[in-house]
């Protein structure tokens, strides 16, 4: 009694501690947990960009329906209201107007900001060619724009500057606002203040867009009623993923628990037994969540969703206890002596399988592993040490021998079932062979829970906005802002030959918007003084229809520029230039500054990241990293895939080693392994047959088939090894336990979240197949043997 009381006290104490831990646990649902944890320096920058950088703060907005004029009206109203919204750093819809402050700033500082300015520019020859070009422009259709600037800016620095800052390819215009190329969708580009990883803030920003759209549509009148809104972007996807996760977790857990309860109620026909059966489940879930919370600091929504599998798994232990110990009573019976060693071995093999998850290196998967391991250990321990004490002494468990006998007669050692099992395995192998080339999905996007419709909308919006170009970026980091800008300038110098060679179409650099102070000073120093410039002008203008005396304002402006202090980031504050700069120049929490230089691919073909790397290496730009987003992410996924493969192989090896150590017989080992090996083949073949390419998550699912399936084959091996009178009850308990497992994982397969769907569908199919194979290949004599004693594992 004392040990039992101690067990109960320990159990309650643990639950209380776990409850306290859970109470202060933040629950998260962003998908960055499924991004790498220990990447290379490039990958770290990339992941940082994906999580917090400009890329993460982009929100792409499309307006469909109604007609072009009304879409444009809504676009303008939407842009106006987002521009006034503090949650947004900026919004653009192609409607120009305003920008007076930006133009003024560029004009005032044209001689230190313009990339064309150096000593040559103001030599007689330089002046002559620059002014000649401006006069040419004067003759052209743009003449009106140039005319007003001629006397102050005859070398055309303002226009040159505006030209370099203008995007290489701007979106199509329809009714005065940006639209898709076919003109059927008005598009806007917004940038949130909050990082893409701040899902709460992203959710608020998304709601703000939706509200502003509804108001703008109402204001545009009845003809605009048919307009609809499309919003995509990394932050938006995180918000949707979280909604999806929250929705799935509640729905799946409820459904799964409800179904398992119904099944158990139908079998036990006792609410009290049902309640007792859930004690280990709930204990396991509480301990699991607390363990994750203690280990990771936060608990991911997907982990909770995965928890539904624990219902199906953990309830098995109480099923074994209740069904197998019938007749001898829950308390004081010999269940522990007879069955516990088998169950313990099953728990150990399951743990060996789940250990592959933390070893995979993905924090998200690691959480699932820790949760499952802690939950299973707790559930098994509670079943073993607490549950018998909680049960009333005279609680009667229904005798399921008859049911077990009938099932046993139908399944165990039946030739027909063997044939079916063999055909299923051969079919699965055939499907695997037929699809072996496309068996594995190597695309990281397959791990992302974005719906196909969202992905398509995102692709279309990116195309319309020309936002898809920055696939390759150069990142240069430095200890300070000025050093980072100077590094960006050295990078530009290395990239310019590639631009003129056509290897890249162009680039966006922060140093174009804000040149380093050193660069600005060097330009100011290269400007001639007023007397020199005045002396050069008549010679430069010889033969031109422009007289030097007209350019007095120019001489005065150049003289002023020589002593004007450099433009700083704070001068740009509140302008569109600051917004553009903010995306390209970032300060990390550790004080490091990083300049991101986005490269535009040459039209018609892909950008060769290798040639960029070579150019940077030759130019000896220190610390420059070339980030090729797509290939970098693919490499990342490939790395994880290999790691998961290794972890799975190791997990499998541990399972086999555990079994061999316990069974000490190669023949029995083969009898235990064969069924779950068949289950793995059938589960993989099922996906191949259905045309599903297998991801990292399927791989993990296959390992779990081995981990969970070994439980069933262990019991069948036990029956075959040492037949006993209670065999029908054991079989009934196995069928019931398998049914709850298949329900738990099968319901997970209904989830739209890839990780849950993949693992759920794989394990449900594999676990069921394992049970059937194990039953079919167990000799029929296992059912009809002399009563035996013993505790063979």
């Amino acid at each position, binding site marked *: 009694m004392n040990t039992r009381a101690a067990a109960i006290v320990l159990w309650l104490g643990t639950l209380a501690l776990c409850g306290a831990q859970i109470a202060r646990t933040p629950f998260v649902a962003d998908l960055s947990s499924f991004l790498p944890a220990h990447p290379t320096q490039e990958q770290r920058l990339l992941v940082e960009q994906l999580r917090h950088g400009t890329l993460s703060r982009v929100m792409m907005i499309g307006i469909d329906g109604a007609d072009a004029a009304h879409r*444009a009206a809504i676009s303008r109203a939407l842009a106006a209201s987002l521009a006034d919204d503090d949650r947004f750093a900026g919004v653009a819809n*192609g*409607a*120009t*107007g305003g920008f007076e402050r930006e133009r003024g700033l560029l004009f005032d500082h044209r001689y230190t900001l313009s990339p064309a300015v150096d000593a040559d520019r103001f030599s007689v020859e330089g002046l002559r060619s620059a002014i000649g070009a401006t*006069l*040419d*422009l*004067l*003759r*052209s*259709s*743009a*003449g009106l724009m140039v*005319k007003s600037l*001629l*006397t102050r800016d005859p070398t055309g620095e303002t226009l040159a500057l505006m*030209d370099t800052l*203008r995007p290489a390819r*701007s979106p199509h*215009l*329809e*009714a*005065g*606002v940006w639209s898709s190329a076919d003109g059927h969708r008005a598009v806007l580009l917004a940038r949130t203040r909050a990082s893409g990883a701040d899902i709460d803030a992203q959710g608020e920003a998304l709601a703000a867009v939706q509200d502003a759209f509804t108001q703008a549509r109402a204001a545009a009148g009845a003809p605009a009623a048919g307009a609809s809104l499309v919003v995509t972007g990394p932050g938006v996807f995180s918000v949707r993923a979280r909604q999806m996760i929250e929705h799935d977790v509640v729905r799946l857990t409820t459904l799964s628990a409800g179904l398992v309860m119904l099944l158990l109620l139908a079998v036990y026909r006792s609410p009290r037994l049902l309640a007792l059966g859930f004690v280990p489940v709930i204990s396991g879930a509480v301990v699991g969540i607390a363990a994750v919370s203690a280990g990771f600091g936060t608990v991911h929504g997907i982990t909770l969703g995965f928890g539904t599998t624990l219902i199906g798994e953990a309830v098995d232990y109480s099923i074994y206890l209740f069904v197998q110990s019938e007749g001898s009573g829950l308390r004081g019976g010999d269940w522990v002596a007879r069955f516990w060693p088998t169950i313990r071995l099953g728990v150990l093999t399951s743990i060996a399988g789940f250990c592959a998850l933390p070893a995979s290196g993905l924090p998200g998967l690691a959480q699932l592993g820790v949760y499952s391991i802690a939950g299973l250990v707790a559930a098994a321990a509670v079943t073993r040490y607490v549950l018998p004490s909680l049960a009333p002494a005279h609680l009667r468990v229904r005798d399921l021998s008859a049911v077990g006998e009938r099932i046993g007669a139908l399944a165990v050692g039946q030739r027909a079932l063997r044939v079916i099992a063999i055909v299923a395995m051969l079919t699965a192998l055939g499907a695997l062979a037929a699809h072996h080339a496309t068996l594995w999905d190597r695309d990281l996007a397959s791990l992302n829970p974005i719906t196909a419709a969202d992905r398509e909308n995102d692709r279309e919006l990116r195309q319309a906005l020309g936002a898809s170009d920055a696939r390759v970026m150069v990142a240069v980091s430095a200890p300070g802002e000025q050093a980072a800008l100077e590094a960006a300038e050295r990078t530009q110098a290395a990239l310019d030959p590639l631009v003129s060679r056509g290897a890249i179409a162009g680039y966006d650099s922060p140093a174009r918007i804000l040149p380093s102070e050193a660069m600005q000073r060097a330009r100011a120093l290269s400007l001639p003084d007023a007397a020199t410039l005045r002396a050069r002008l008549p010679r430069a203008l010889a033969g031109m*229809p*422009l*007289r030097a005396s*007209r350019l007095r304002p120019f001489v005065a402006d150049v003289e002023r520029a020589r002593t004007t202090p450099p433009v700083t980031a704070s001068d740009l504050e509140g302008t569109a230039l600051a917004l553009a700069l903010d995306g390209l120049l970032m300060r990390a929490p550790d004080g490091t500054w990083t300049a991101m230089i986005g490269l535009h691919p040459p039209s018609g073909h892909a950008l060769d990241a290798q040639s960029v790397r070579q150019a940077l290496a030759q130019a000896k730009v220190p610390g420059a990293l070339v980030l090729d987003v797509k290939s970098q992410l693919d490499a990342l996924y490939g790395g994880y895939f290999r790691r998961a493969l290794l972890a799975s192989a190791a997990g499998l090896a541990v399972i086999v080693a555990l079994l061999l150590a316990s069974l000490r017989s190669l023949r029995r080992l083969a009898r235990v392994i064969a069924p779950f090996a068949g289950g793995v083949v059938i589960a993989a073949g099922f996906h191949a047959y259905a045309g599903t390419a297998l991801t990292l998550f399927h791989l993990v699912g296959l390992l779990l088939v081995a981990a969970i399936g070994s439980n069933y084959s262990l019991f069948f091996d036990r029956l075959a090894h040492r037949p006993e009178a209670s065999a029908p009850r054991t079989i009934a308990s196995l069928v019931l336990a398998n049914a709850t497992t298949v329900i738990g994982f099968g319901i997970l397969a209904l989830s739209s979240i890839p990780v849950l769907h993949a693992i759920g569908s794989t394990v449900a199919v594999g676990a069921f197949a394992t049970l059937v194979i194990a039953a079919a290949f167990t000799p029929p004599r296992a059912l009809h043997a002399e009563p035996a004693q013993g505790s063979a594992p």
Partner: protein
Amino acid sequence: MRRRLAAAAAAFAFACGPVAAAAAFDVAALMTLLHASHPARATFRETKYLRVLDQPVETTGELRFTPPDHLEKRSVGLNGETLVADKDMVTIERGGRTQALSLAQYPDIAVFVDSIRGTLAGDRALLEKAYRLSLKGTQARWTLTLVPRDEKLTRIVKRIVITGSQAEVRRVEIDQADGDHSVMAITPAAP
């Protein structure tokens, strides 16, 4: 395009002969005449007289017009500048760079473009939106003067004088408010 523009227009004018001949040659008659025009091609010589320069600057090139609203202006030299005005969009291509702008956003550029396109297409409603029209001369040699209605626009352009013969526009003269002016002489292209 392939037929001589003037001949086509004249043929059309004769087809509607009785009506056109019966009335005096007024804005309505000119618009009817122009409205019947076909796609046309012409060469131009544009001379700009700017006060800031000692001598006028000159550009030559080719004009193409497809009624009602597609106008192309290709300049010789100037890095092969091409300006295309199509419906609401104006695209300027020069030296490999393309800049597109929507006329809805640039009303002051829109009135320039529309003054030419409206005249070429004989779109009286479009012209009268921004200008007061007055016509002098005969069908064989007419002069249409556009004076901006909007006070803001008068600060940029004083008037636009378009001279033509039958359904052909021969000369567009723009007087800017600051005293600068430009003259574009248009010669219909040979077939």
